[in-house]
């Protein structure tokens, strides 16, 4: 049967090619779009993992940029049972310049080198080249490796921040979009850049000894500093973000689904045309002893073979599109075996569904009509 199926497909190359294109577009759409959603999800979850512990902001502040917290809280908080690190931080954005390039916006984080000297919870504390900031450092910065490449500077080189020169003393690695264009410096430098008063920071990061203590600490802080500080953890934000990513995935699956439906219609249409053209042949086959089920099986097999070939090519195209997106626009993508299996199953369903109607149509052909004239 498979021999005759392949011969039939090769007999009308143009029609087979059209069917293939329909399947390829559908499957490539699924693979590329869903791989982007997987990539975004993985990326966001890595970002969330970078924020350990509890973040304390000014009560009522809608955003860390607008939050002002007195550093005097640091000593009090450090005394709470189960607290390992109390890290005052300033998060802001700023333009920077080097001798070669001007970059309009980078993330600037101000941190306390003394309090964070042993801490490596977030990427900007994990210096891979050069060294970490010290409290005695004046006009020094640690920057992300990606930013260093973009501004064309080496360790020991200079950047201009707030019209002042700063020396690059170290770099840290990060593939995550939030952290790959980042400057870490001391609190004083960040205060100047963000026009924040002395002794103030935008937030305090409280890292517990034991992660299981996090909820307890959060509750204690919320009660003790009610009206002064608000405590939040990334699990809270992650709920919102996970739900957003879930919606994004559904949306992308829906778009992929539309691509699939269009592909399915193309398969049905071309298979139907192919069947209508060959109605006489089906009558002849019946006349010489084929049963309806044999003809239905042949047409559905033709459709499945085309869909599976299209599926394989579509997966290849989809992976290509994903790779292209990652390479040229830094869009994160993840192609999993599950996704490939799902896309191939989708192609298979497209083939079966696209083949059923034309196959049923073929079964209606009477051998008498086919063989007369």
């Amino acid at each position: 049967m498979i021999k005759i199926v392949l011969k039939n497909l090769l007999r009308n190359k143009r029609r087979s090619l059209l069917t293939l294109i329909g399947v390829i577009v559908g499957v490539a759409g699924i693979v590329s779009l869903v791989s982007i959603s997987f990539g975004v999800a993985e990326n966001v979850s890595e970002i969330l993992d970078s924020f350990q512990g509890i973040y304390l902001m000014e009560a009522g502040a809608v955003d860390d940029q607008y939050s002002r917290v007195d550093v005097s809280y640091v000593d009090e908080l450090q005394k709470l049972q189960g607290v390992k690190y109390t890290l005052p931080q300033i998060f802001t954005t700023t333009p920077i310049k080097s001798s070669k390039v001007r970059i309009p916006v980078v993330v600037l984080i101000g941190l306390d080198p003394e309090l964070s000297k042993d801490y490596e919870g977030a990427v900007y504390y994990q210096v891979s080249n050069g060294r970490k900031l010290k409290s005695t450092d004046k006009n020094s910065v640690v920057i992300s490796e990606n930013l260093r490449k973009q501004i064309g500077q080496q360790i020991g080189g200079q950047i201009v921040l707030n019209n002042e020169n700063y020396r690059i003393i170290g770099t840290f690695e990060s593939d995550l979009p939030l952290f790959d264009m980042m400057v870490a410096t001391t609190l004083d430098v960040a205060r100047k850049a963000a026009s924040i008063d002395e002794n103030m920071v935008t937030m305090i990061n409280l890292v517990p000894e034991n992660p299981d203590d996090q909820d307890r600490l959060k509750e204690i802080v919320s009660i003790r500093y009610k009206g002064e500080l608000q405590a939040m953890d990334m699990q809270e934000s992650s709920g919102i973000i996970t739900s957003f990513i879930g919606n994004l995935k559904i949306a992308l699956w829906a778009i992929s689904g539309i691509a699939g439906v269009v592909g399915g219609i193309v398969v049905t249409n071309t298979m139907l045309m192919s069947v209508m053209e060959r109605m006489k042949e089906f009558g002849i086959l019946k006349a010489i002893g084929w049963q309806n089920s044999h003809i239905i099986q042949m047409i559905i097999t033709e459709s499945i073979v085309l869909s599976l070939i299209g599926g394989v090519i579509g997966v290849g195209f989809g992976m290509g599109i994903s790779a292209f997106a990652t390479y040229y626009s830094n869009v994160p993508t993840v192609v999993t075996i599950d996704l490939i299996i799902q896309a191939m199953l989708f192609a298979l369903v497209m083939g079966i569904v696209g083949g059923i109607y034309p196959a049923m149509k073929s079964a209606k052909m009477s051998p008498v009509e086919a063989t007369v004239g």
Partner: protein
Amino acid sequence: MKKEIIVTKKLSKYYNIGQTNEVKANDEIDLIIKEGEFVAIIGSSGSGKSTLLHMLGCLDTPTSGQVILADEDVSKMDNNELAKVRLKKIGFVFQTFNLIPGISALENVTLALMPYGLSKGKEEDAIKFLKELGLGKRINHYPSRLSGGEKQRVAIARALINNPKIILADEPTGQLDSKTGKEIITLLRTLNKEKKITIILVTHDELLLPYVKRIIRLKDGKIIEDTKNEE
């Protein structure tokens, strides 16, 4: 005493039943054809000869009456059972050859067996039939590269592949020139004589009649003449 291979009892096929334009294509035909006969069914256009052939060949079902093929009543069979009867007992030869384009002569011959599993032996039989019919060098040719006579010989090889007891031929020379037509009718007669296959052909070509053993003439769906030919 030769065995009866085809028996029809009050076999009728009506179209547009109960309407003013009701057509009695075949009307209560009683017919007995014995093994090894070579029968021509003749008649003018619309006499019902093709309809009769289709019912004898299980391609069409009767409105009433019976068709018994080799002791098996096929009149009430469903489509799948009829397909099996066509596969096992009957070979068809059509006026327009009805070969499938895009596949070789050999594949056309073995096509009927493909869904049931084509054995090596049957493929060898197909090659043997094609060679016997003078198509040894055309085995792998597509129908588009064959002449009319060659196409009809491929169709005859296809009809022979399952060693049927009966070959039904509907105007088998209708699309051939007289010389090729004569070759085809001679070939059918040889098959009838040598392989003892019962052959029933429908034709309006009176020149073929000397080749057959029995002539049945139809008019208005009824048999009006049934004669034996002198050898």
